[in-house]
């Protein structure tokens, strides 16, 4: 437990460094780092304009998804809740695609993340309304399937109707997500909303701890449940919406990471939320490195790798919790 934080931080720094150093252009580590600082020459351009934004975005996506996953799970007291599975990421994708295809994204600077955020907000609202305060697994998963299916279908429709011939091919990107060839512009676009979302979710720590004892106990401890719920909804919509708008819907991060880390934090939700944020960042960076190593010339989607890791665990969790599903 004591060693958890140093461990997570060291691994995060290592994966971040690896993410910056691994890529198409094979250059010695010292040259790469020098080029990163100076920005000189082609290598400098690669380091500063291509690799750095990719790694930063990886951290932002991972923190957002890990944090959101742990917080929703804590609030609903259900280990199956995850932004991707319950349709929040899918809905954010839909918002982003619609605003890009209608041209709304070009109207003003923050139009794209705001659209994704709005759509994600609606999805969280629907899911929480359907799942009820106790977050029954069955309703939660079913509501998630319905929201995901609808969002996916509408995303495909919007892309199919686009006058752009390439748009149809990008259904995979919006459903699977990728960090390839993103630029600093994308980082600046998502960062403000990510920060707001992270702060909001982080402020929920005490409420989540109290909630783990049950709703009545939490209320008797002075936790305002309506207020916590609203903060959770807005925080998750902000952070998941913003990262999905620039990197597509990446699933399973919020499921896998809290599950792995839960035993190390003594199942305390307030601590788990922070550990999951770091763990999520590590997971996304590692998966994104894997994407580049396995198929360096291709465009393997990050979401594909995450689903390969996450789906078996999801099955395992369903198996374990199937008693509660009835």
């Amino acid at each position, binding site marked *: 437990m004591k060693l958890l934080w140093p461990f997570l931080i060291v691994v995060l720094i290592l994966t971040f460094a690896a993410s910056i150093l691994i890529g*198409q*252009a094979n250059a010695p580590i010292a040259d790469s780092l020098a080029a990163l600082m100076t920005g000189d020459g082609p290598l400098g351009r690669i380091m500063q304009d291509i690799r750095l934004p990719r790694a930063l975005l990886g951290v932002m996506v991972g923190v957002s998804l890990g944090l959101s996953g742990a917080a929703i799970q804590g609030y609903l007291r259900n280990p199956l809740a995850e932004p991707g599975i319950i349709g929040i990421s899918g809905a954010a994708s839909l918002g982003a695609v619609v605003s890009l*295809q209608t041209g709304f*994204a070009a109207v003003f600077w923050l139009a794209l993340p705001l659209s994704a955020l709005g759509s994600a907000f609606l999805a969280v609202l629907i899911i929480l309304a359907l799942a009820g305060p106790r977050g029954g697994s069955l309703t939660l998963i079913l509501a998630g399937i319905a929201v995901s299916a609808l969002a996916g279908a509408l995303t495909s429709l919007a892309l199919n109707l*686009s006058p752009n011939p390439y748009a149809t*091919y990008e259904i995979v990107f919006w459903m699977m997500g990728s960090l390839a060839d993103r630029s600093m512009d994308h980082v600046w676009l998502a960062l403000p909303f990510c920060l707001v979302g992270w702060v909001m979710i982080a402020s929920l720590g005490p409420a989540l701890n109290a909630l783990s004892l049950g709703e009545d106990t939490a209320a008797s401890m002075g936790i305002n449940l309506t207020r916590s719920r609203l903060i959770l909804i807005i925080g998750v919509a902000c952070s998941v919406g913003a990262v999905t708008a620039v990197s597509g819907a990446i699933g399973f991060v919020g499921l896998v990471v809290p599950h792995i880390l839960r035993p190390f934090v003594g199942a305390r939700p307030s601590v788990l939320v922070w550990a999951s944020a770091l763990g999520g960042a590590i997971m996304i960076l590692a998966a994104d490195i894997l994407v580049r190593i396995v198929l360096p*010339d291709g*465009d393997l989607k990050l979401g594909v790798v995450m689903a390969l890791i996450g789906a078996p665990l999801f099955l395992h969790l369903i198996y374990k919790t199937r008693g509660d599903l009835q």
Partner: protein
Amino acid sequence: MRPSKVITLALALITGASVVEAGPPRVVSMNLCTDQLVMQIADPDQIISLSAMARDEHSSAMRDEARKYAQNTGSAEQIYLTKPDLILAGLYTEKASVNMLQSLGLQVEIFDPEESFDNIRDNIRRMGDLLGHPDRAARMVADFDQRLADLQSGITTRPRAALYGANGYTSGVQSLSHHILTAAGFDNIAQELGLTWGGRIPLERLIVLNPDVVITGRPFRGHSRGEEILRHPALAPFKMAAHTDARWVCGTPLVLDAIQDLQREHPDKRTQ
């Protein structure tokens, strides 16, 4: 001989005879590139209809000209009813429609896409023969060669250029784009990579290759992530004002205009 064959033969003789009487054949074109060649070679009253793509804002280099003619949707039924003497199609025109028209006894001529300037010359001559204007086609080829030679004179340096399209796709040596680029006095970076047909160059690799210029495609309407790469800040220092556009799509003498535009940014031609 079976009766059905006799009838087919008789029909062929009759229709063949009528063509000779009626002068140059009246044509339907089903392909963007044959559309443009037909417009450049045929008499206007020879053209029954062109494909809908001929009016396409993004891909057709003769979209305004094409508005003067009727358009077809490419369906065999519609084309058959307009009773053309000759149908022009591309290699990738819908096979079912082409087979149907052939089985209805119509003459369908299929043109391969042009991948080199020799292909352009051959296709112009073949089109001239088919349309009954071989002399016009011969003049067109001669003009093409003359203007091409003029454009290419005085080029001593050959900057290294990369064609870069959506999703990082580049055109290889066996493509019309490659020949337009090299005729304008640039070396194609795809050649260094040994790309025959073309392929994907990841952004990082492109920057390591450090080309003198990068020529991107003109974006389509609507949004696609595939085209977002063309606005990536890492690409900005290389980018050239010229775009690949509709004139790069088909092998007609219009490629010379594309070459001329491209040369505005060639060091040997810029001063002129």
